């Protein structure tokens, strides 16, 4: 039995131990204490341990030695054995990976007799990868697959050779919103927007990718739900064994970064703008005290100084001027840079601007440099544009030419480059024979803050901003600017173009003109003579001037009356509202020399009252008085037919200036009336409708006719006076003979006498001062200022002083140095006719 029990001899049926040995599965027999008691032949074959290293060993130590698994994986084994023992059933462990790229699972079978554990059998199964997830031909490593599968921040997937989606990872699902089963097999162009699809971007990307191996793109891509994100996409062509098998595509969501970028850009732009605004503000703030300093310097220079003091003040003045120019440049530049620079639309007389710029620069030149000015005959006399900016560019260029030219000539040429239906492109060119510009510097001429004279000596002053400002201005005016060397000799040619609109109609000119006149109204055209002498002159005539004060507030009435009395005015009528004033003026149309009109009044305000007075055809000057005048108030006053305006509370000096302007300088409105009559008389040969037109015109124009200051104001000769008188009575004659003309006539005999007596009184002594016919030329021309010495060849040439003065008194013939008025031909001839009448009448008298 012992033999039988010991094995050795062949039994009737195979020994169990032999069966164990012959098992096709690699198997180990363990004692209850997990020690290896037997290893099958297959096991020894597969694991290849030495038998002594195997049987008798503790299992875990053995596995550790053989497979070197991670502790986690070794734990899979112990867990499986523990579970099997506890449950008294077979258990299979999870895969135990090894370092040798093979992994095993153990099937654990516990053997119990009653409650006693007799033995444990472990059968080892070698694991084979069955990679069903990778397309044929694209198989990849497990680790790599897991990595790709697990990445959440990138959408990584493969396309087949035609661009259909072959794989899909978690990142792709998260980013694009498609589940794997929805998207695999679809073409990758579903991620693109319509615009990209229209431009065939997906196809092009694959094409480029085939050619270059990879392509990278940033742009909007669309999710399943239609929302979009800013994506960075890299597509790589994938080859296997030299055969193209598809594309790898990696997509990143850059929406965050994109918005961060745009925030940064916005912040940058904002700070740029703030910087420019700051510059503009600062320059402005600096300029104000600068002006104060310069005025003080100018005053100081007028006092008696020692020659040394004078030198020093001269330096202060000069440096101040340079500094001011620098500040102005920076202010302009920063305004241009911040885009807050605007071009105004106004009337432009190119010839007069060119002439005046040339003249002002010429004054600073040594005699060795001479100016030439060519104004093309096709140059329009007046166009619409920004005269100040045109002047600024021209002044800069001409100023540069003067700065860099020590001898020779500076030539300014202006002409029309091209012309279309409603605009001119005006080309202005400045040629000098100065130091010229080195070729290397020519490219950066128009760049801000560059000066080609970068030498340490800095012979030429300036910010280097001038030309860059000129460039921006020219561009704002629809033109361009450029430089070329002077081909004839040393020197340079700077040219610029600017677009100007054509002035279409007469109305447009009149509109502009009246705006010009208004602009030049009270303050600009205010006589500069000092207030003391004005006051004296005013006092001389005050006693015979009759004023109407329209003011509702008693206090204001008293103060105004007091002010006027202190200036010598004795005849001041009072009205306490507009309606009263209108009645007073209507009943005595020629009684008042000037009306001072409050605006805000009960019953009828100043605007309405003025309109009513004008509607009645009465041309008496009306000066508005308003408190806290806002911008635009003045314009409103002028619109309602008022002539001027005084801010409240009334400043005495201002009042003196305004009164002087209207009582001393402006032609008496009653006389304008007479003149009209003369003019109308000479038009009697015209048809009635033409006459009516002329009458309207004259009436309208006469509102704004200005007279120059009566210089000298010396006593008129008796014959002059009688001319006036005669003239006056003539006009009355005309009135009665032609009732069709709608002008206001004195209503009563008394009134008539009043008018006549006024006419013969000495207050008309600056008899008919030369009329600056600013308004009368509106049908044809704008003032053209040309002087003979500068531009003998300029068109328009000089209008002789006599021509203008002939309309006035001979005494004043010396006052007109530069005539500014090409005359409207019909009016011109009329003027001479009137003049003839004038003189003719004079000779008739004894």
């Amino acid at each position: 039995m012992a033999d039988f029990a010991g094995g050795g001899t062949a039994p009737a049926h195979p020994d169990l131990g032999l069966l164990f040995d012959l098992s096709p599965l690699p198997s180990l027999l363990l004692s209850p204490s997990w020690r290896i008691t037997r290893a099958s032949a297959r096991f020894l074959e597969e694991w290849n341990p030495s038998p002594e290293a195997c049987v008798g060993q503790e299992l875990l130590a053995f596995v550790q030695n053989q497979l070197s698994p991670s502790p986690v994986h070794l734990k899979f084994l112990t867990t499986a054995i523990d579970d099997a023992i506890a449950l008294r059933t077979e258990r299979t462990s999870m895969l135990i990976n090894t370092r040798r790229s093979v992994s095993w699972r153990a099937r654990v079978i516990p053997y119990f007799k009653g409650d006693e554990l007799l033995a444990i059998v472990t059968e080892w199964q070698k694991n084979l990868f069955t990679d069903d997830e990778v397309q044929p031909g694209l198989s990849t490593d497990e680790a790599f697959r897991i990595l790709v599968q697990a990445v959440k921040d990138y959408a990584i997937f493969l396309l087949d050779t035609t661009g259909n989606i072959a794989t899909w990872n978690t990142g792709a699902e998260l980013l694009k919103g498609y589940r794997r089963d929805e998207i695999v097999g679809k073409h990758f162009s579903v991620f693109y927007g319509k615009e990209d699809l229209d431009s065939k971007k997906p196809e092009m990307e694959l094409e480029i990718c085939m050619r270059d191996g990879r392509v990278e793109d940033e742009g909007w891509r669309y999710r399943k739900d239609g929302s979009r994100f800013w994506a960075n996409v890299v597509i790589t062509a994938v080859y296997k064994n030299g055969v193209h098998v598809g594309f790898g595509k990696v997509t990143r969501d850059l929406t965050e970064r994109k918005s961060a970028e745009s925030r940064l850009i916005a912040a940058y732009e904002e700070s740029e703008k703030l910087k420019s605004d700051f510059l503009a503000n600062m320059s402005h703030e600096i300029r104000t005290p600068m002006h104060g300093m310069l005025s003080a310097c100018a005053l100081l220079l007028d006092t008696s100084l020692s020659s040394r003091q004078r030198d020093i003040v001269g330096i202060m003045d000069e440096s101040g001027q340079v500094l001011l120019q620098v500040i102005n440049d920076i202010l302009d530049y920063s305004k241009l840079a911040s885009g807050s620079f605007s071009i105004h639309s106004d009337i432009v007389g190119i010839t007069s601007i060119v002439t005046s710029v040339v003249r002002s620069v010429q004054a600073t030149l040594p005699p060795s440099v001479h100016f030439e000015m060519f104004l093309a005959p096709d140059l329009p006399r007046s166009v619409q544009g920004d005269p100040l900016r045109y002047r600024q560019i021209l002044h800069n260029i001409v100023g540069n030419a003067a700065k860099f030219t020590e001898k020779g000539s500076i030539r300014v040429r202006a002409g029309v480059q091209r012309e279309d239906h409603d605009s001119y492109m005006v080309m202005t060119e400045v040629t000098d024979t100065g130091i010229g510009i080195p070729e290397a510097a020519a490219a950066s001429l128009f760049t801000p803050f560059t000066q080609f004279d970068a030498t340490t000596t800095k012979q030429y002053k300036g910010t280097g901003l001038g030309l860059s400002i000129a460039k921006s201005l020219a561009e704002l005016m629809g033109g361009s600017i450029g430089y070329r060397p002077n081909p004839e000799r040393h020197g340079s040619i700077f040219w610029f173009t600017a677009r100007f609109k054509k002035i279409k109609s007469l109305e447009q000119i009149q509109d502009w003109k009246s705006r010009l006149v208004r602009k030049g109204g009270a303050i600009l055209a205010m006589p500069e003579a000092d207030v003391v002498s004005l006051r004296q002159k005013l006092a001389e005539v005050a006693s015979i001037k009759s004023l109407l004060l329209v003011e509702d507030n008693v206090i204001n009435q008293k103060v105004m009356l007091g002010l006027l009395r202190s200036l010598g005015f004795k005849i001041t009528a009072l009205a306490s509202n507009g309606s009263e004033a209108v009645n007073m003026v209507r009943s005595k149309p020629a009684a008042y020399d000037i009306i001072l009109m409050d605006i805000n009044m009960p019953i009828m305000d100043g605007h309405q009252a003025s309109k009513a007075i004008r509607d009645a055809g009465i041309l008496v000057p009306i000066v508005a008085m308003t408190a806290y005048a806002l911008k635009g108030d003045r314009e409103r006053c002028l619109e309602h037919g008022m002539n001027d305006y005084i801010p409240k509370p009334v400043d005495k000096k201002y009042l003196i200036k305004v009164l002087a302007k209207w009582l001393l300088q402006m032609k008496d409105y009653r006389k304008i009336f007479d003149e009209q009559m003369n003019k109308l008389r000479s038009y009697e040969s015209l048809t009635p409708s033409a006459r009516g037109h002329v009458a309207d015109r004259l009436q309208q124009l006469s509102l704004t006719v200005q007279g120059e200051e009566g210089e000298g104001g010396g006593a008129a000769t008796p014959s002059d006076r009688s001319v006036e008188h005669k003239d006056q009575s003539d006009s009355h004659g005309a009135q009665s003979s032609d009732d069709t003309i709608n002008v206001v006539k004195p209503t009563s005999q008394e009134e008539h006498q009043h008018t006549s007596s006024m006419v013969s009184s000495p207050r008309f002594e600056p008899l008919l001062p030369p009329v600056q016919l600013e308004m009368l030329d509106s049908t044809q021309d704008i003032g053209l200022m040309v002087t003979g010495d500068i531009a003998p060849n300029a068109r328009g040439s000089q209008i002789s002083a006599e021509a203008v003065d002939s309309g006035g008194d001979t005494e004043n013939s010396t006052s007109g140095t530069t005539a500014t008025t090409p005359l409207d031909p019909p009016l011109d001839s009329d003027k001479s006719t009137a003049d003839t009448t004038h003189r003719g009448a004079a000779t008739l008298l004894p």
Partner: protein
Amino acid sequence: MLKSDEDSDDEVYFANMPDFGDHVDNAIFSQILEMDESDHERDFSEPLVINFFEQAQDTFEKMDQALASRDLNELSTLGHFLKGSSATLGFNKIRDSCQVVQQYGHKLTVDGVSEPDENVCLKKIAEALQAAKVDTAELEKQMKKFFGAE
């Protein structure tokens, strides 16, 4: 354009004037005083100023009534009216309060922005009116002293 020479005769009056603080614009008020025949007999300015205080008193009463009947239009008109005379005399503080009354009477803030809430307007007007009354009383005292002392 410095006006030193023009201002010289004003300065004489400036020198004779007491300091009314920010109640009075000296340049304007001196212009009024200038119209007196002599500095000792202020026969132009004194009745004028007295007249003003009567006018102010009168206007304040009308304003109180208008305020009680919530008549913004009337308040604006009254504000403008007294603003005119106070500005003429250079009484700046009163003028500024009147400006407030005028503006809110037009349902506008002082900066000209629309203020649609009538209650807010009335409240602002009431405040400005009160300030104007206080300033007027104070100024009247100073003026009496000024004219009385001469």
